[in-house]
C-alpha cells in the first residue's frame, strides 16, 4: 500500500523525461522474450477475394440444394457472406449445426462434437468452418495457445474456401493478443484491417480498438510487466518451472526494483505535496449520490464452459472422456484430453 501511494503521488509530478522512462518497457519483461522474434516485414496477402461460385460448388458437394443456395444468396445481402455461409453449412450438415449450438450454449461437449465433424469430413470448406468454431471455443475457455494451433491449421489448409477467412484472421490476432504476444498481435490486426475492408463493422471497429489498447499497453512498463506475468502464470499451469520461466521471474523483480527506485527518486525531487492530494478545484455544489442505475457488476452472469463442465454429472464427464479416448485420432485425442483437463482445473 505504501509503494502504491508513493507510485501515485510521484506520478502526479513526473517530469517528461522520467515519464518516458516509466512508459518504455524493459526488454526482459516482454511476454514474448523467450519466443521466436516476430520480424517486421511486408507480408504478401495470402487471401483471395471470396469466390462465390466456387463456394456454392463446394456447398453442393456437401449436399446443399437449390432452395438452400437461393436462401444463402439472400442472406449474403442481408447478413454478410461470412454469416450467410456459416448458416448454409449448418443447414446442410446437421452434426455441424448441433456442435455449433452446443458451442453457443457453452456446452463442454462442443469441442468433442466439433472435432468429430472435423475428423469425418474431407471437405476443406467444412473443415474451415469447424476449425473456426473450435478455435472460438478454445479462446472462450481462456486457451489462446490452442486457439492459435487450430487457426494455424485453418490458415495452412483451409483458406480461400470460405468467406469466413476474415473472421479467422481477426481471431488469430485476438488469440495472440490474449496470450499476450502484443508485438505479434498488432501487425496482424493491421493486416486484417488492410486485407478485409469489407469485413463486418463490428470486427473492424473492435480491431481498431484493440490496436489502440495494445499500443498503449506496449508503451507502459507496468502493463508489460503484467503481460509477462500473465504468460508466466500460464506456463506454470502447464508445469513449466524450468530456467526460462525462472529467468522471466527474476527479470520481473529487477524491473520492480528499477521502478521502485525511480519512483523514490521522483518523490525526493518533488517539493511539497503532489497537486492531486490537495482539495479539489471544482467541488460539488451539494453532497448527493450520482445519478444512474444502482447495479453492481453483471447481475446476469452467463455460465462459463468451466462452470458447465463442473456442473455436469460424473457419468456425463466420463462419457465425454471415453469418447475422446475411443473415437479420436491420436493428434485430436491429445488436444481434447488436455483441453478437458484444463477445463476441470479452471478457476470458477
Amino acid at each position, binding site marked *: 500500500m505504501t509503494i502504491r501511494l508513493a507510485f*501515485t503521488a510521484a506520478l502526479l509530478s513526473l517530469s517528461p523525461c522520467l515519464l518516458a522512462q516509466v512508459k518504455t518497457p524493459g526488454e526482459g519483461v516482454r511476454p514474448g522474450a523467450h519466443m521466436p522474434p516476430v520480424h517486421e516485414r511486408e507480408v504478401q496477402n495470402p487471401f483471395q477475394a471470396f469466390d462465390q461460385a466456387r463456394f456454392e460448388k463446394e456447398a453442393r458437394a456437401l449436399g446443399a440444394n437449390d432452395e438452400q443456395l437461393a436462401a444463402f444468396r439472400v442472406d449474403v445481402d442481408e447478413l454478410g457472406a461470412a454469416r450467410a455461409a456459416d448458416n448454409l453449412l449448418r443447414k446442410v450438415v446437421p452434426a455441424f449445426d448441433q456442435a455449433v449450438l452446443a458451442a453457443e450454449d457453452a456446452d463442454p461437449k462442443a469441442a468433442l462434437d466439433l472435432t468429430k465433424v472435423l475428423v469425418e469430413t474431407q471437405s476443406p470448406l467444412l473443415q474451415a468452418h469447424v476449425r473456426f468454431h473450435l478455435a472460438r471455443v478454445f479462446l472462450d475457455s481462456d486457451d489462446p495457445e490452442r486457439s492459435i494451433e487450430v487457426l494455424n491449421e485453418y490458415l495452412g489448409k483451409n483458406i480461400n474456401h470460405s468467406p469466413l477467412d476474415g473472421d479467422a484472421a481477426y481471431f488469430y490476432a485476438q488469440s495472440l493478443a490474449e496470450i499476450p504476444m502484443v508485438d505479434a498481435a498488432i501487425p496482424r490486426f493491421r493486416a486484417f484491417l488492410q486485407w478485409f475492408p469489407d469485413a463486418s463493422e463490428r470486427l473492424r471497429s473492435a480491431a481498431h480498438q484493440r490496436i489502440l489498447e495494445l499500443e498503449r499497453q506496449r508503451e507502459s512498463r507496468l*502493463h508489460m510487466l503484467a503481460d509477462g506475468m500473465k504468460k508466466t502464470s500460464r506456463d506454470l499451469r502447464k508445469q513449466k518451472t524450468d530456467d526460462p520461466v525462472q529467468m522471466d521471474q*527474476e527479470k520481473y523483480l529487477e524491473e520492480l526494483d528499477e521502478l521502485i527506485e525511480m519512483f523514490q527518486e521522483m518523490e525526493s525531487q518533488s517539493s511539497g505535496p503532489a497537486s492531486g492530494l490537495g482539495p479539489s478545484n471544482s467541488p460539488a455544489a451539494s453532497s448527493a449520490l450520482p445519478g444512474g442505475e444502482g447495479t453492481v457488476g453483471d447481475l446476469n452472469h452467463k455460465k462459463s464452459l468451466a462452470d458447465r463442465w463442473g456442473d455436469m454429472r460424473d457419468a456425463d464427464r466420463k462419457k465425454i472422456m471415453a469418447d475422446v479416448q475411443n473415437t479420436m485420432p491420436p493428434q485430436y485425442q491429445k488436444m481434447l484430453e488436455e483441453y478437458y483437463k484444463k477445463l476441470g482445473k479452471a478457476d470458477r
Partner: protein
Amino acid sequence: MLRFLQERVNKKTKKVDERAAENGVVQDEYDELSTKQARVKELMRRLAVKLGKENDVEEDR
C-alpha cells in the same frame, strides 16, 4: 508489496522445479503456483490501469 509477493512466487517456483526433478509434483501444486502468479499479475494490472488513468487526467490539464 508487489515485489515481496513476486519474490515469494519465484522461490516457490524454484522449490517446485527441484521437487519435480526428484519425486514429481502433482498438477494441483502447479495450479496453486499459477494462481499465485496470476494474483501478482492482477495487482500489477490494476496499478498500471490506475496510474494510466491518473496520467491521462494530468495530460489533459
